[in-house]
Every structure is written in C-alpha cells, then in structure tokens.
C-alpha cells in the first residue's frame, strides 16, 4: 500500500555566486514515501517548469550513494535526518505529513555557492591533485597479491578509501575544516606498502593545500564523523596528524 505525504519545502535560491540568496517556500502534494529525496526534488522541478519558473539547481549523479556528487543540508544535518546515507539514499518516509523541510547548500568558505544548492567543491580535487595518488612505473601488469599486506591494514585502508568526497564533513564542521576528508585520503594510501613510498611528501603537500584553500583547523569535535555517509573514523585524523608531524620531523 503506497503512502503519500504533503510537504512544504523551504529551499535556498541564489541566482549566482555573487547574488544575494533567499529562501523560497514550495508546496508539494502526494509525494510517495517510497520516493527518494532527489526524486522528490525532481518532482518539485517538474512542477516549477510547468509553472514557467526556474527549476532548483542541485548536484546529483549516480543516485546510489557512491559518486559523492549529491549534497544538501536538510533540516539541520548534511544529507538529512538519516544516518550513514547520502541525500540520494534518503527516503521521504523519513519525513512526516505536513512537515516543512528546509534545504540549504553546504556552507563553508572553502565551498562557495555556484547556484541555488550547488557549491563549488573543486577544492577537494585540488587537495587530491596535491598528493592523493601513488606513482607507478608503467610496464608489465604485476601479480595481484605479490606484496603481502596484513588483513587489519587492508581493512582499515578499505574503510578510509570508502570516502566519496561529498564534503558533508566540511558542511557539518563548525570550523569549516576538511581534516576528515584529507585524513581519509592520506590514510588509505599510508596504510598500504604501495602508498608508503610517497607518504611523507603526500602528507605535507595535501595539508599545505588544504590550509592554502582556506579550510579551518580541526578541533576534534567529531561532528564530521557523525555526519559522514560512509562512517569515516576520526582515527584517520590522528593518523594524518602522525603522518604530517613525522614528515615534518624528517625535513
């Protein structure tokens, strides 16, 4: 039996990066509780287009929680009221009939607004470009399991690698800090032998880039970890601190 709800949406509208933004309120009727939050946003945009109004701009891509493209700060939380999901995995059954839902963009100096709910997260790409890779000489394909790696290290590296770079950590942080993201990217390589080769340089360069791009200083509140759709652990931040300080001592 399909259940439907009527909702009011308070959505941040902003014509461009420099334009002054404001909240607009829209009413939506008969939204299936089985639909995802982004499907609901699609319905809103269909409605706006049919009324001859400009649709709401928001980021989305894979819609299965792995690309890191969707964002949205919904009712006081990045990715909305559910835990360990991205906005595209959030369902309308998490909302009540008649509820007013406030939808805002990520707010952080490091993520300037492009339009409406879309923010510029290219700062994350710049941080990755500063060292979030390993250098491999081309040649024959090496054997898959030629280098022995402890199970624990492989598991922890995999957990860190599950970061999709959505930016919820920055959006949740009272300091606008990107430490959880950077620590995940440093950790998943630092834990593996292939990543050790460039570990010191990577930690130095990625932290320097993060600072340069205007992200804040981590004060270990842990809000990032709570809101991370992938459950990236604060232990990664301790590892990043370790990697960075060790790298600086070696200089």
């Amino acid at each position, binding site marked *: 039996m399909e259940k439907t709800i009527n909702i009011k949406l308070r959505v941040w509208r902003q014509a461009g990066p420099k334009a002054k933004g404001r909240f607009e309120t829209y009413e939506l009727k008969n939204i299936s509780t089985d639909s995802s939050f982004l499907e609901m946003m699609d319905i809103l945009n269909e409605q706006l287009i049919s009324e001859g109004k400009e649709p709401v701009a928001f980021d989305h891509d894979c819609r299965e929680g792995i690309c890191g493209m969707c964002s949205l700060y919904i009712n006081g*939380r990045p990715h909305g009221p559910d835990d360990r999901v991205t906005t595209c995995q959030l369902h309308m059954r998490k909302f009540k009939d008649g509820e007013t839902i406030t939808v805002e963009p990520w707010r952080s100096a490091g993520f300037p607004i492009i339009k409406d709910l879309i923010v510029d997260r290219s700062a994350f790409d710049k941080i990755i470009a500063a060292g979030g890779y390993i250098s491999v000489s081309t040649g024959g394909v090496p054997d898959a399991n030629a280098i022995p790696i402890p199970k624990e290290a492989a598991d922890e590296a995999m957990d860190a690698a599950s970061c999709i770079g959505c930016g919820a950590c920055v959006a949740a942080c009272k300091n606008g800090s990107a430490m959880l993201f950077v620590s995940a990217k440093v950790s998943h390589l630092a834990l593996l032998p292939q990543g050790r080769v460039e570990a010191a340089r990577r930690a130095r360069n990625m932290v320097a880039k993060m600072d340069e791009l205007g992200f804040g200083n981590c004060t270990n509140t842990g*809000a990032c970890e709570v809101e991370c759709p992938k459950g990236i652990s604060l232990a990664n931040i*301790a590892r990043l601190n370790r990697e960075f300080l060790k790298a600086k001592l070696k200089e």
Partner: protein
Amino acid sequence: MSSTLGSSIGKKLLMSISGLFLILFLVVHLTVNSFLLVPDGGDLFNAGAHFMATNPAVRVIEPLLALGFIIHILYGVKLTLENRRARGPERYASGKKTQGVSWASQNMLVLGITVAAFLVLHIANFWVKMKITGDPRLEHTTIEIGGVPTQVENAYALVNTTFSYLWIVVVYVIGAVGLAIHLSHGFWSAFQTIGFSNQLWRKRLTILGNIFAWIIGVGFSSIAILQYLFYQPN
C-alpha cells in the same frame, strides 16, 4: 620549522603541547592544595608552599608556565578566529542537529575564557600578594621541616582568610567546573592532535580524560568549599 608551526596541524600541536604542559601543572597544583585539608593548622601546606617558592627547578619552570599559558590563550583565540573565517559568514537556517557531539568540544573558547577570568582573580588573590605586594597575613611562621625549625611565609593564613568569603568560594567553584568541562574535551583532544590515538585509544583517552577532568574540577572546588565550611577559626 616555521612552516610546520604555521600549518593548521602545527598550530594545533602548539595547543596540544601547551595544554598537556598546563595539565601537568594542574596535577602539581592540586597535590599541593590537597595539603590544605590536613588538619595541622596549615604546617604541611606552608612547607609545601615554601618548597614551591624556593626550589630552583620551580623558578625555571615558572616563566615556562607563563609562556605555556600565553601560547595556549593566544593560539586558542587565533584558531577560533581563523575557524570562524573558514566557516564563512552564512549560518544554517535550520540549525545544527548533529547528535553525539559534546557541548564542551564546541565551546572550548567560552570555557577557556571562563577559566581565564577566574585566573585573573586567582592571581590577584594569591600570586600578586605572595610574589609582589606582600600581605600582613603572610607574616612569618616557624614550622619544622625535616626536624629543622624553619621560618616560612604563612601562606596557609592567606588562603584560609581568602576562602572565608562566600563569593570567592563561589567564583572558585565556577572556575573549577569550567576547567573540568574544558578538560573533558581538551585531554583526549591533545592526544588526538599529536597523533597518539586510534579506534581503541580514543575510547580509553575519552574515559581517562573525563575521569581526570572531574578529579581536577571536584578536587579544586571541594578544597575551597571545605576550607570555607570547616577550616575557619571561630
């Protein structure tokens, strides 16, 4: 080196190291204060105070301690200002509903200001009188140290009289509770910043930090309260 301490992690390292140094100071301070509860008319406390005032090691550590305070306060303010800027001018209209984030961790500056405000009164009450202006209540008294009669300042009399005022005791309790809440985040956070933490140690350090914070908070405030209630000369 300058690029290290100028980086975000470097600035946090300074907060961490200075914070841990101040934590050590608190342990020594509370230990000496606990002598106030020995009902010997203040002889043990005076001996302790005399040792702290004359020990050459303490003379070296005292300016270091002042430096620790200054670094911790200045960098605390600097980091907070930078973080406000990094956060951007806009706030979320729907507020922050993230669960499971400790209040202390989000209000370290406010708690720090509480402690610093208390510190001003505390320094005026004791340090200024003991080190600079002097006070009639500090008049010399003779106690036995290791069987040798020694003339020492009667620090106990000054402390005892100061804690005869209810308002001072109230301010001290507020300061100590503020300090305890500050430490309930600061202790584990200091270890996290130097990189001494992981999934397992985070739990241990948080529990240890909370226990330590409340030993300090309850310790300092109970000494002031007990002095007010039970140690006043009739």
